C-alpha cells in the first residue's frame, strides 16, 4: 500500500479556463495499490479537477496530454523525467503550460 501524496498542480497560459479559472491547485492524492505516476495523475485530474468533462480533449488526447501542452515537474521538462512514467513524490509541483494560443 502506497501512502497518499500532497502535491501542487498548476495550469497556466490559458489552460486554467478548464479548471474554474484557478491556476494553482493544492491536492491530496489518495493512498493506492500502485505508485502514483504522471500518467495516472492525468486521469485523476480529468476525474477530479476538470470542470467541464466535455472539454477533456482540450487537456488530454489518448492517455497523455494534448500535443502542445508542456509539462514541467519542479521546473524541469517532463521529457527528461520519463514523462508519463515519472513517479510522483510528496510536495511535487507539476505545471501544465499551454502553447495553443496567439502570441
Amino acid at each position, binding site marked *: 500500500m502506497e501512502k497518499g501524496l500532497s502535491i501542487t498542480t498548476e495550469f497556466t497560459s490559458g489552460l486554467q479556463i478548464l479548471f474554474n479559472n484557478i491556476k494553482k491547485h493544492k491536492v491530496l492524492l489518495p493512498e493506492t495499490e500502485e505508485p502514483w505516476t504522471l500518467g495516472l495523475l492525468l486521469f485523476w485530474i480529468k476525474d477530479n479537477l476538470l470542470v467541464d468533462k466535455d472539454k477533456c480533449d482540450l487537456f488530454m488526447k489518448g492517455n497523455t496530454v494534448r500535443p502542445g501542452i508542456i509539462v514541467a515537474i519542479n521546473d524541469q521538462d517532463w521529457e527528461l523525467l520519463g514523462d508519463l512514467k515519472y513517479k510522483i513524490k510528496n510536495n511535487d509541483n507539476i505545471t501544465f503550460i499551454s502553447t495553443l*494560443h496567439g502570441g
Partner: protein
Amino acid sequence: MPVLCSAKCGKNAVLKRPKTGDTLCKECFYWAFELEIHSTITNGKLFKKGDVVAIAASGGKDSTVLAQVLKILNDRYNYELKLVLLSIDEGITGYRDDSLKTVQENKDEYQMPLKILSYEELYGWSMDKIVAEVGRKNNCTFCGVFRRQALDRGAMLLNVNCIATGHNADDIAETVLMNILRGDVARLQRCVNIITITEGTIPRCKPLKYTYEKEIVMYAYFKKLNYFSTECIFAPNAYRGYARTFLKDLERLKPSSIMDIIHSGETMCIKKNVKLPDIGVCTKCGFVSSQDICKACMLLEGLNRGLPKLGIGKSSKAHKALASLPDPKLLHF
C-alpha cells in the same frame, strides 16, 4: 537520476530541446536560445546599425520574448538599434484591453517607447462595433486585413526602418500547411521569407523564424516573463486550428517536422507559367494592393455603406457589387 546538461557545464538539465534533442541547464539553454536568434539575425541580415526597429507587440508570449531577446542581443552584440514597441488595439473588450496592459509593463521593464494605434482611430470602427454589424462569421477577415495595414501605418508614423514580428517556427510551418491546403501559391512563397519587402511598405522581419514554440514558452516560463495568454474571444480561427492540431500531432511523433515543413516551403519553387498577382497601389488610400481598391478599403466601404459583406470573399465579386452601386467612386474614408 538527474540528467546532466549536455553542454558539459556540470549542472543538471532542465529541458530537452525539441529542435536538437540536447538536454540543457537553464543558463546553457538561455545562451543557446539567444545565440541562435542572433545567428538568424546576422545570417539573414535583418538589421543594419542605427536602424529603428518596431517590435509588433501584442502582449502575448512570442512578442514578449522577442522584445526581451532583442534587447539582450542589442546590448550584447552592439547592434546599435533603437527598439520601439508598436501595438495595435483592435478594440476587443475583455481581450485586447487586458493584453495591452502587458505591453505597458514591457514598455516599463525594457524602457522602450510604446505606440498604441487603435482601429477606432484608424478606421472609425473598433472590432466590437464591427462584430455588432457583421456577426461572428467573417469578423476575423476584417481583423486580419485591418491589422496588417495598421502595423504599416503605425510603423510609418514612428518612422522606423523595419517591423519585427514574433512569428515562430511553428507559426510559419502552420502557415505553409495552410497555404498548401488553400492552394495560395503567392502566399506560400512569401510566408517562408525571413524578410518581406513590398515596395511602398516598411520591410518586415521574423527573428524567431527558426525558434520552436516550446522553447519560447519554456524561455518565458524559466525567466518568469509576464505574458498574456487568452484566446481571442471572437471566433477561434477554425481552419488554422485544424492545421495547428495536425502540426502538433506531427511534432509529437517527430519534433523535426516543423523544420522540415519550413524547409519544404523554402525550397519549393513555382513554375514559370504560374501567374502571380501584380502588386500595385490602392487607388483610394495609396497602400500596397494587388487590386485597384485594396481589401481594407473594400471592407471599410462595405461597413460604411451598411453592406458589411461587400469585401468578403472574392475581390472580383466585390468590385462588381461596388460598380453597381450609385457613385462607386465616392468612397468615404
